[in-house]
Every structure is written in structure tokens, then in C-alpha cells.
């Protein structure tokens, strides 16, 4: 019987984990090991993927992958929420009575002094901040460094490492690594994190662990400890554990692991100071973990233990030459890690001996190599948790999430609610909150421009210079700045959705639909971020584990209308469509999505043949978004937008004004038709005639839009001088054709640069050409059909 056949609400024991390669390793790393109990919680509204409960947390898995996991048919039973495990007694007293823990001033009490060898004064102490996805790592990083990085309630918000000094410790540098589940090279993030620790050799590791999900989190801890680098463990979300009646005996954890363990609450900044003291101490005194060996001599005759230690002796010299910690090298070799195998450069006879040892272990243990290692780690964790952890009753957060999920991921409610939520976000942004704030700001800018203009008249300022300030700067930059409220409002809603944990559900709900297009459910997140800005959207695609999915997602993200295009839509919608403005806006967004879908289908059938990788993802509990985090994000977005307005858009506006005010003899022209700009743009203007945009000023504006999309509006304002002139130069149909072209044509230079970084020059060039062609065809069709209908 396979896991796919297990009904909702039923539990069973995993018998065999099928599949192959890195995917199978990922299953095992996530805790899907033979012997573990797994429960099917629900199916996504479209019937696929399924949500499982394992080790007390929720995991998503496609039915096609669930089919690869065999369960013991006799073990199938109704799921019962057993509540917390019975509290173990120590010396006849419950665990809660043993709460003493080394605090400040007690450094060293639980520190390994075996090879203490302090670094010279003034040495830079570098730390790697490592942990599972969505365990509060970036929150802790912000607390440690005082940085304002964006934190999200979606696995994989940190897509690359970033560093900063710990507050109050100038001689330190902590690097926030992407969230990972294991040190197996399954995703790019895992490779980045592993390479950082192995190659850049930080003086210490701060391993952050989600205490509410300690079993799965400790799996990474054990692998990090195998790297034999000084390490401190931060038990995050301890407030949540205690609040739900749970308890963790920190002293026992420290003794068992041989590293300092500090309970913290990163979001409340509790215990962080103590954590820093311990981290600095272990790094300075080079106190490596007290143990790196977790195999049990007694377990199944010590099969895994003997195998690992045998291999360790065998490869000792090679591991030392390659600079890879020996225990880590041995366990990865057993798991079949090809990168480590290559780095060790084993001679054929050595590789043969290793293989023989592993085969022997597989026979004795009754499990294959990967499963045996995963089982060894989880067995150690289980013993440790039985002794030191009182699991809380079902947490309030989890209970609340379950209730919310009944509605938000319900079979009949999920998709209508998603459409409703996104519709509401756009309606509120473009028609209510954002629009109201924008009108206010535009009023202030106009009033200021009027006042400045009056003073210029009074002071008898040269009319050309007046035009430069009033038409170019106030008209151009001012019109772009007035869109700050819209952008901030849109980001406010998007960050609320992400922080709350809803985005992860969207990925879960949409997976089956996206899979039909050859994408994974996880692709929805980069694409949704793309509605804000294409650049972070492209980078967020790094969380996708497969190269194929990543490439496809990156090439499709620019079809999602980014917020920089909003000023263009807003400008034309208010001029030509008035009370139907929001319908035009929504139709543009929908069109972008539809073109993206068609393109995806086209790619799936041509350059990206094949199937998307499995959808194995954790569903985090819903959380109330932190006001500080949201405000930081809004401030960042507003600041970034204003920076663009006063740098690139400011300069572009002046250049456009200069080109349209002067001719080739640098004489002020009487009419723009004889300007330098008219001559240049006139060359490409014929291309836009089928779009109903014969005026050279439109092609000019579209060219400047390549620098920054907002420039389209500022250029048009400068070139036409007034809104009435724009209205006179085009019809409603050609205005919509222009909007469609703006929606679909090449993304801005920054986005193209980020695609070039991710995929190379060839793909970036392909994307620019492809999108320009698609945009031209769609806009020409709109103009043709529109002219026939209206």
C-alpha cells in the first residue's frame, strides 16, 4: 500500500521510501524515514498535492511522489491527536522543576574546554547563522545586527547570504545564510550554505532552531556539528513552547550535544544578549562541539556505527587533504553525496573498500545507505527529545491555523477566496486607499509647482529654464513621485499576505494548476513578488530546487505586471477610461497572467520539456504580521522608489527635455517636431503605426521606459506638455494598445541585468527579444480588434 492510497484523517507507518537521487534524500531529510508515523491531513482543493503531518509538523507532497512511499497496511489507523507526551520525571521531579540554566557571567560552564585555544586579540570573529527555513533566522539576524532585512512567513525568504557586525561587538561579522533542512545539496540554497561553511571557514556557527518543531530542526544541527566548527544553539520561539505548556530541559540538551544551548525569542529579543556572549566566547576560544559522533554502538549491532568509523579511518588522509571535516565527509560519503565524493579524490581501490563497507552495513541494518544515516540521526534525536523535551499540547497557533485553513484551503472555498483576496488588494490599492493618497500628493505637487512658477515669473527667470523646472522636473519627476502611495499600499498588502503565511497556502492550492503548465506550486511566489518588482521576483526563483523550474519561472516573472508600470496604467486609465479605470487595471494584470500562461505552455512544449520537480514544502502556521517588519518594508520600498525618482528618472527626464527642446545646432526649437528627439525617434516610429501610435513621442517614451518604466509617464508629460495634448494624440483603443505594449515589452534594464546574472547573457537577450515581439503582436491585435469594434 502506498501513501497516496491513505485516506484523509488516517495515520500509518512508513515502510519503504522509494524514489531516487536527491529527491529521495530530501524525503529522508524532511523526516520521511521508514518506521515513522505519517498522517494525511488534507488534499489541496484541486485534489493534489496532499498535506501530511510528520514529526508534528505539516508537509506537502504531490500524489505522484506519495505513490513512491510505501506504508505498512496493517498499521493504518484513525488519527488521534494524542496531545502532549507524558512528562518525564527526573529524580522523581517533573521536568519543569529543573529549570536552572547558565546565564550571563557563567560562560564556560557547559563549554568544551578540550581543545581551547584562544584566537589572538583583534581577530575578526565570523559567524554563520544557519537554520531551517522559516525558523526566525532573519528575525534573529536583524536583532543581532540591527539590520532591517525583510522577514517573511514563507519558507525561503532569504535567497542569498548577507553579513553584518553584531551590535556592540565591532570585531564580529555574522552571515545570514538561506534556510536549509539539511546539508545535502538538494537546492541551490543548501549548496550556498554548505560551501560558505566549508570554504570560508567561519570561526563559529550560530544554529537557530525552532523549538516548537525541535525534532526536525535538530536534524540539521547534527550535520552542522559534524563540521566540527565552534557552535552555539539558539532555541528560538521558546515563548511559544512555554505558552503552550511545553518545556525543554536546556541543560540536558547541552550535555547531550556538547555545545551551549540558549533559549531565546528572537521576535521579542529575549535571550539574544546571552546568545551573543556564548557565541563570541566559543568562537574566540575555538571551542569545538564536544561530540560529532551520534551513532549508537548498540543499535542493530552497531552496523551504522562501525560503517561510519571504518570509513572515517579509511579516508582520514584524503579528508584532511581536501579540508573537509572527517565525520562530515564519512557520513556524506555513505549518503552518496557526489560533490564530497569528487572532492575527496579517492583512489579506485579506496572507493571500492568504502562501497564494500557500506554494502555490508546495508545488509546488517536492513536499510539502504541514505535511509540508514537518516534513521541514525532521527533515532538520536528521538532519544534526546524523550529525555529533554516535553512537547506542548497542540499549540494555539497550530489550532488557529487549522481553523483558518479549513476556509482558505478548503475544497470549494480556496480558489474563490484567493481571487477575492487578490481582487480586494488591487481594488483597495488602485481605487480606495492608494488612489486617495495619490490624489492628495498630486495636489501638493501641483500646488508647489504653481507657487514655484509664480515666483519664477516674478523674478523674471528665463523661459527655457522655467520650462526645464516646471515641465521637466515638476511635470516629469513629480508625476512619478505621486505614485509612491500606490506602490507603498500594494506592498503593504503583499507583505501582509506573505508575513501571515498565506502565500505558502497559495503555492499549495495552485500547485496542480501550475503543474499543468510545467511549473511547480512554488513558482507562484516569485511570480507574486514580480507584481511588486521583477528583480526580487527573479531572485526569489532561487528557492526552486530544479534548474528547469527556475529558468521557466524567471522567464515568466516579467509577464507579471510590476509596480513600476502602475504610473503608466494610472496615467492613461485616468485620462481615457475614468470611472472604468480599475477594470482596465485588472484587465491588464489578467492579460499579463494569461500571456504568461500561454508562454509557459509554449515553453513546456518546446525549450523546457519535462516535468516540474516534486513539491515538498512546509506549511508554516499563520502568524499576525509584525508591524515593525511591515513598516520597515514599506519604508524601504518608498525610499527605493524615491531614490530612483531623484536619480535615474530625474536625469532621464532632463535628458529627454534637452533632446526635445534643442535641435542639432543646439538652438531652442519652436516646435518639438524639429528637435533632436523627433529626428531619432522618427526612425523607429513607423514600427508603432500598426499599434495606432504613429506619433514619435510614444516611441520615445517607450525607449526611456527601458531605463525605468516610470520614465514612460515622465517622458510623455515632458513631450506633450499637457494631458489634453496626449488625449488629442490618441484614441481610447490606441491608449489601451500602448498599455498592453508597456505591460508586455522588455522589462527595465535592472530586471534584464538580474536575469543575466541568474541565467546568463543568452537567456537575457532571448527574454528581451521574445517579450518585445510578444508585446508588439498583442498590442497590434488589441488595436486591430479595438478599431473594428469601437
Amino acid at each position: 500500500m502506498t501513501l497516496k492510497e491513505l485516506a484523509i484523517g488516517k495515520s500509518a507507518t512508513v515502510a519503504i521510501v522509494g524514489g531516487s537521487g536527491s529527491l529521495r534524500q530530501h524525503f529522508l531529510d524532511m523526516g520521511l524515514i521508514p518506521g515513522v508515523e505519517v498522517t494525511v491531513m488534507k488534499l489541496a482543493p484541486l485534489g493534489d498535492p496532499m498535506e501530511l503531518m510528520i514529526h508534528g509538523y505539516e508537509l506537502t507532497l504531490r500524489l505522484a511522489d506519495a505513490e513512491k512511499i510505501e506504508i505498512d497496511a496493517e498499521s493504518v489507523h484513525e488519527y488521534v491527536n494524542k496531545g502532549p507526551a507524558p512528562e518525564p520525571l527526573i529524580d522523581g521531579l517533573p521536568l519543569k522543576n529543573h529549570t536552572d540554566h547558565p546565564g550571563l557571567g557563567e560562560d564556560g560552564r557547559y563549554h568544551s574546554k578540550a581543545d581551547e585555544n584562544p584566537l589572538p586579540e583583534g581577530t575578526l570573529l565570523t559567524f554563520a547563522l544557519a537554520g531551517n527555513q522559516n525558523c526566525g533566522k532573519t528575525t534573529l539576524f536583524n536583532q543581532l545586527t540591527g539590520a532591517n532585512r525583510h522577514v517573511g512567513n514563507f519558507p525561503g525568504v532569504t535567497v542569498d547570504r548577507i553579513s553584518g557586525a553584531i551590535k556592540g561587538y565591532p570585531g564580529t561579522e555574522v552571515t545570514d545564510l538561506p534556510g536549509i533542512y539539511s546539508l545535502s545539496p538538494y537546492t541551490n540554497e543548501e549548496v550556498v550554505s554548505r560551501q560558505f561553511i566549508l570554504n570560508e571557514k567561519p570561526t563559529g556557527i550560530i544554529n537557530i532552531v525552532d523549538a516548537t518543531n525541535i525534532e526536525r530542526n535538530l536534524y540539521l544541527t547534527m550535520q552542522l556539528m559534524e563540521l566540527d566548527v565552534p557552535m552555539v544553539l539558539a532555541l528560538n520561539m521558546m515563548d511559544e513552547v512555554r505558552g503552550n505548556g511545553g518545556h525543554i530541559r536546556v541543560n540536558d540538551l547541552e550535555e547531550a550535544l556538547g555545545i551551549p544551548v540558549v533559549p531565546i525569542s528572537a521576535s521579542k529579543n529575549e535571550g539574544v544578549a546571552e546568545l551573543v556572549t556564548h557565541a563570541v566566547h566559543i568562537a574566540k576560544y575555538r571551542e569545538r562541539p564536544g561530540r560529532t559522533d551520534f551513532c549508537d554502538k548498540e543499535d542493530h549491532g552497531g552496523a551504522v556505527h562501525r560503517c561510519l568509523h571504518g570509513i572515517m579511518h579509511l579516508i582520514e588522509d584524503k579528508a584532511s587533504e581536501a579540508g573537509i571535516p572527517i565525520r562530515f565527509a564519512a557520513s556524506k560519503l555513505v549518503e552518496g553525496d557526489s560533490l564530497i565524493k569528487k572532492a575527496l579524490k579517492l583512489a579506485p581501490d579506496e572507493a571500492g573498500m568504502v562501497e564494500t563497507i557500506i554494502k555490508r552495513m546495508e545488509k546488517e541494518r536492513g536499510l539502504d545507505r541514505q535511509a540508514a544515516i537518516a534513521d541514525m540521526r532521527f533515532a538520536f534525536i528521538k532519544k534526546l527529545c524523550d529525555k529533554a523535551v516535553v512537547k506542548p499540547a497542540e499549540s494555539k497557533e497550530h489550532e488557529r491555523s487549522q481553523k483558518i485553513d479549513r476556509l482558505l484551503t478548503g475544497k470549494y472555498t480556496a480558489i474563490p477566496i484567493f481571487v477575492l483576496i487578490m481582487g480586494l488588494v488591487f481594488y483597495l490599492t488602485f481605487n480606495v486607499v492608494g488612489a486617495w493618497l495619490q490624489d492628495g500628493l498630486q495636489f501638493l505637487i501641483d500646488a508647489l509647482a504653481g507657487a514655484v512658477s509664480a515666483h519664477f515669473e516674478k523674478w523674471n527667470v528665463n523661459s527655457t529654464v522655467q520650462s526645464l523646472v516646471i515641465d521637466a522636473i515638476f511635470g516629469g519627476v513629480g508625476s512619478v513621485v505621486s505614485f509612491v502611495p500606490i506602490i507603498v499600499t500594494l506592498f503593504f498588502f503583499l507583505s501582509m499576505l506573505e508575513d501571515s503565511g498565506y502565500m505558502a497556502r497559495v503555492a499549495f492550492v495552485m500547485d496542480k494548476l501550475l503543474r499543468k503548465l510545467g511549473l511547480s506550486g512554488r513558482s507562484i511566489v516569485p511570480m507574486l513578488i514580480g507584481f511588486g518588482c521583477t528583480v526580487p521576483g527573479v531572485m526569489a526563483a532561487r528557492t526552486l530546487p530544479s534548474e528547469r523550474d527556475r529558468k521557466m519561472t524567471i522567464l515568466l516573472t516579467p509577464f507579471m505586471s510590476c509596480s513600476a508600470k502602475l504610473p503608466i496604467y494610472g496615467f492613461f486609465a485616468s485620462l481615457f477610461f475614468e470611472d472604468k479605470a480599475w477594470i482596465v487595471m485588472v484587465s491588464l494584470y489578467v492579460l499579463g497572467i494569461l500571456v504568461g500562461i500561454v508562454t509557459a505552455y509554449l515553453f513546456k512544449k518546446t525549450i523546457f520539456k519535462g516535468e516540474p520537480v516534486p513539491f515538498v514544502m512546509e506549511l508554516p502556521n499563520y502568524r499576525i504580521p509584525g508591524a515593525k517588519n511591515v513598516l520597515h518594508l514599506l519604508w524601504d520600498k518608498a525610499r527605493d522608489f524615491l531614490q530612483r525618482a531623484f536619480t535615474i528618472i530625474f536625469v532621464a527626464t532632463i535628458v529627454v527635455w534637452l533632446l526635445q527642446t534643442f535641435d542639432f545646432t543646439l538652438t531652442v526649437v519652436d516646435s518639438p517636431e524639429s528637435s533632436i528627439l523627433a529626428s531619432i525617434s522618427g526612425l523607429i516610429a513607423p514600427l508603432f503605426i500598426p499599434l495606432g501610435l504613429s506619433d514619435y513621442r510614444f516611441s520615445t517614451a517607450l525607449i526611456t521606459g527601458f531605463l525605468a518604466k516610470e520614465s514612460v509617464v515622465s517622458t510623455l508629460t515632458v513631450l506633450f506638455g499637457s494631458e489634453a495634448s496626449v488625449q488629442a494624440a490618441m484614441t481610447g483603443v490606441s491608449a489601451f494598445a500602448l498599455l498592453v505594449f508597456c505591460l508586455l515589452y522588455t522589462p527595465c534594464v535592472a530586471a534584464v541585468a538580474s536575469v543575466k546574472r541568474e541565467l546568463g547573457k543568452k537567456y537575457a537577450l532571448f527574454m528581451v527579444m521574445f517579450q518585445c515581439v510578444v508585446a508588439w503582436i498583442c498590442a497590434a491585435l488589441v488595436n486591430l480588434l479595438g478599431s473594428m469594434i469601437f
Partner: protein
Amino acid sequence: MNLPTVIVLAAVVLPAGLAVFYLIKNRKKGKSCCDGCGGDCMGCNINNK
């Protein structure tokens, strides 16, 4: 050209020059940043890796 014109022109040219300098400086560092953040955003971090 009268004095107010010169002052207004200077008030435009100077910040424009600074903006150009800022853009060139960031470009020289190899930054293709989306936001002209000066190098501390995630995009810059990746690009400068």
C-alpha cells in the same frame, strides 16, 4: 542671463550632476541594482558576490 536664472539653473544642474555621478559610481562597482540603494540590498549582494 539674469542672476535668478543662473541660481535656478545651478539648482538643477548640481543635483543632476550628483545623480549622474551616483549612477556612474554604482555602475563602476559593477552594481546593476534595481533601486540605486548604494549596494546594501539583496540584489546588490547577489550581484557583487
